[in-house]
Structure formats: C-alpha cells, structure tokens
C-alpha cells in the first residue's frame, strides 16, 4: 500500500462513517421524542452529511479516477464501503440511538482534533471546520447519556442495555491498521493510541456521571468495517439510499 492508496482509504473511512450515521439519523426525522430533539437530530445529520461530502470529494480527487462525492456515495457497493460498523447499526430506541451517537462522537471529536494538525492542509481544514460541529454533537450526546443514565429507573435500564449492546462495535475505531499507521507516520493521520486514551477517559467519566456500568475491558470487539467487511445491516441501508441513482443510471437530478 502506498501513501496515496492509504490516503484514499483513510478519506473513505472518514466520509463513509459520517454518511452512514447521517443516513441512520435521517431515518429518525419525524420520530423524535420532542420537537427540540427533532431539530437536534436533524442538525447533527446535516453536519455529518456536509462533512461526508467534503471527505468524499477529496477522496475522489486523491483516487484520480473521475469519481466525485456523489459517485462514491451512491454507486459503490457494500464491500467497497469503509465506514465503522458502529454507525451502520439500526436506531433501536432513543437510548440505543444516543449510545451509538455518544461513543462515536467522543471518538470523532478527538480524531478531528488530532487531524486539525494534519500535515495535509486539506484534511486539517476539513477537520477544523468539522471539529466545531462535533464539539456540539459531543456535548449533546454526552448530556443525554447522563440524563438517561441518571434519570428514571426505566431510562437507566434502557441506557445500560444500549451501552452493553453497542459496546462490541466501539473497538475498531481505536485500533490502527496499515493505512492508519502509514498516514500517522507521514504526519497526515491521527495517532489512534492517543485518541484511544482520550476516548477512554471521556467515556469512563461520562458513564460514571451517568451512574452506568462500563462493559468489561476485555470485551470482544467486532472489526472489519474499515476494511469493507460489514454487518448484515449495511446492505439494506444502501439499497434504500442508492435506489434512485441505481434505478435511473446516468440521470442528473
């Protein structure tokens, strides 16, 4: 793998994770527990969609094969998608949605913080802009984890189950593979070891405040998303998301 290939992979991972999580949030529009949450969910989805477009546009340029952000988003199949497994998991109830969001946001925040100092100016710029948005995402989702964890007995129980269920998908974002290492060495990618420590500290503090138990440290972690091996959920999501471009090949909208 050369640096350009690694960069392409890296940008796909960033863009795809944003896009797929935004798509899951889009599914929730009209179903939030209060109008204010309707706004919040939509805002987070908008931010993620915007970031996804920036990453994928850059990915297309790095690839140099003439694919723009739309071609990458709407015409790749499941195996070519590089999003983290955590973002493709279904919405479940509000606690499930928030558990997924929080564990992702905490990682996303520290990652973009690190990438803001990337030697690749384009990455640094996209990350710095995204970081402002994600600062709000993280504030919101961690507040909800605390609120539901330390709310009623029912909300506490639901939040604990939600954390326990999603936990197995929280490992792969913290582990560097070849592409991660290559780009870190080049000063372009983030130091995932550092992000991991920051993430762990944030999560430990939030769960403690939320009076929730943290799953065992040696819990089994699912991996594969970054390499294109997904759960069975992604195919259905893509079938819906890509329907129009697939059904009307070549059409402009």
């Amino acid at each position, binding site marked *: 793998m050369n640096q350009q290939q690694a960069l392409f992979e890296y940008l796909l991972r960033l863009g795809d994770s944003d896009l797929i999580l935004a798509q899951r949030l889009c599914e929730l*529009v009209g179903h939030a527990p209060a109008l204010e949450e309707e706004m919040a969910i*939509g805002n987070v989805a908008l931010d993620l969609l915007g970031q996804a477009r920036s990453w994928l546009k850059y990915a297309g340029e790095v690839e140099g094969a003439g694919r723009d952000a739309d071609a990458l988003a709407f015409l790749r199949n499941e195996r070519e998608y590089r999003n983290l497994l955590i973002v493709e998991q279904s919405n479940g109830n509000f606690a499930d949605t928030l558990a997924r969001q929080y564990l992702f946001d905490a990682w996303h925040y520290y990652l973009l913080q690190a990438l803001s100092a990337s030697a690749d100016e384009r990455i640094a710029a996209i990350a710095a802009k995204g970081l402002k948005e994600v600062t709000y995402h993280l504030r919101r989702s961690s507040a909800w984890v605390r609120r539901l964890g330390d709310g009623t007995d029912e*909300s506490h129980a639901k939040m604990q189950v939600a954390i326990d269920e999603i936990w197995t998908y929280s490992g792969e974002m913290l582990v560097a593979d070849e592409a991660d290492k290559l780009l870190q060495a080049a000063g372009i990618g983030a130091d995932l070891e550092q992000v991991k420590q920051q993430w762990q500290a944030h999560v430990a503090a939030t769960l403690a405040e939320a009076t929730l138990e943290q799953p065992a440290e040696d819990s089994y972690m699912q991996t594969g998303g970054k390499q294109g091996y997904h759960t069975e959920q992604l195919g259905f999501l893509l079938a*819906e998301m890509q329907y129009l471009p697939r059904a009307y090949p070549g059409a402009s909208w």
Partner: protein
Amino acid sequence: MSPEERAFQEKIDADIKIEPKNWMPDAYRRTLIRQMSQHAHSEIVGMLPEKNWLTRAPNFKRKLQLLAKIQDEAGHGLYLYSAMETLGADRDEEVAKLHSGEVKYSSIFNYPTLSWADMGTVGWLVDGAAIVNQVVLQRTSYGPYSRAMIRICKEESFHQRQGYQILLHMMREGTEEQKAMVQESINRFWWPSLMMFGPHDGDSPNSAQSMQWKIKRMSNDDLRQRFIDQTVPQLELLGCTAPDPDLKWNPERGHYDFGEIDWSEFYAVLKGNGPCNRDRLRTRRNAIENGAWVREAARKHAEKHNKADAA
C-alpha cells in the same frame, strides 16, 4: 360593543398590532390560537411527506437541501407554537388536540409523496400556495403572529425556488423518464394545492369576522386566484401542463379561468379519508408516545440535579 372592544377594533382598524399584554376579545384569542396551532401542526406534519424521500435523495446536494428544508419546518413549528403560547395556550395541550383529531393540519399533507419529483412539486406548489397565504398574514393584526410570518415567509420563498429548481433541472437536463415523472407529479398535486385555500368564500362562514379582525386579510377565492395567476407562467416555463382542460387566460378578467374543484374530495380528506390521514397522525402520535419515557427521564434528571445544585 364595550369600550374595550371599541378601543380594540379601533386599533385594528388603524393597523396597530395587538400585543400579548393588550386586552382582546375571547373569541379573537380563541380564533387565533386555533389558527396558529393548526399552522404549527401543519409545519410538523408537513415534515413527514418530505421525510419519506429523505433517505432516498439522489445526491448530496439534494439530500442536504431536503434535510435543511425539513429542519426549517421544524423551526417554523417551534416559532409558531411560541407565538401561540403568548396567547396563554399550551403547546402540549394543543398537540394532544391534534392527536385526538380535534384540531386539524393542512389537508395537503394527507397526500402521499410517490416519486422524487414530488420533492420539487411540494416545494413549488405546496409551499407556493402556503406563501400566498402567508404573505398576506405578515400584515395580520396580532403582533407575534405577524412577526413569525415575516420570518417564515423568507424561508418559504427560498424553499419554493428550490422546489422549482428541482423540477426545472429534471425538465431541462433530465431523461424522458424524469420528465414524465415531473408531469405525473404535477398531475397529482395540482388540484390538492388549489384546495389549500379552503372552500369558496360563500362556504366559509367564519371568514367575515376574521377579516374584520384582520386575522384573515384576503378571501379564499381571491388568494386562490392570485396563486393560479402567478403559477401558470411558471408551469409553462417548465414545459408542463396542468390537469385542468378549463385553465386558460381570460383577457377580460385579467386572470386565468380554471375548472371547478372536486369539493367532495376536499371534504373527504378533511374528514379523515385521504390516502395518508391515518399514517400521518399515527406517526406523530407514536413519536410522542414512544418518547414519553425520554421526556420523563429528562425531567427527573433536571429535578435531581437542580436539587443537588441548590444543596
């Protein structure tokens, strides 16, 4: 007429806005609450037919636009509920009336969105009809409502242009299939959009009082005519047609003539027998009911922590 009532009507006649702390007749207050809550509910329910295509939008640009538009509608709902609350009404109570079927929302949202072109048509025709109403309501007599309308109108005009652009793009750059999709969408939404202005003036019994109070500022039929007059040239620019053989320019009136609306459909949908009435209400009701434990947890958490902070 009591002195208070006389003073109230004089202010209205002089185009001075009524503000929340001013005296107002009960019927004025009730009529406004009803109208504003219906308007707010329509913004919220109106998110659903668009959400139906949000997960299937064909590219980033359209997906971002559509989501931003839906967000704006949620925002409009929030403004309108707030403005309504200045009259002493309660948002949750009004939402409960929506869910029980006691208060309505705009019937247009009981029609399904069946193709991507509907995302253009809804913006162009449905928001277009709404704007014709709302432009006039910017001059409505109740201050908070009037100010909400000014803000909303700006965003709605933007939505309308965006919707029209979706259709124009499909008609100019699109394949034959896409062009057919546009025409088919217009065929479905044309008449329901005209129905958005309500029954004929003669069949609209509460209008006179509302006109006097300047809650309403133009009659249903006048608004409808204004909408048609401004819309037909846009339709022609698209290269599409309306499903109305009687639609044609009348140089004597200086207006377009148009065919008779199928009022039986209008009243059927109003009664709950549109294609989506049950779905829309069920979706809203489920959202609020399924969220009860969440709102309860938030309340409980705030209670605990306010106590903790006070201690």
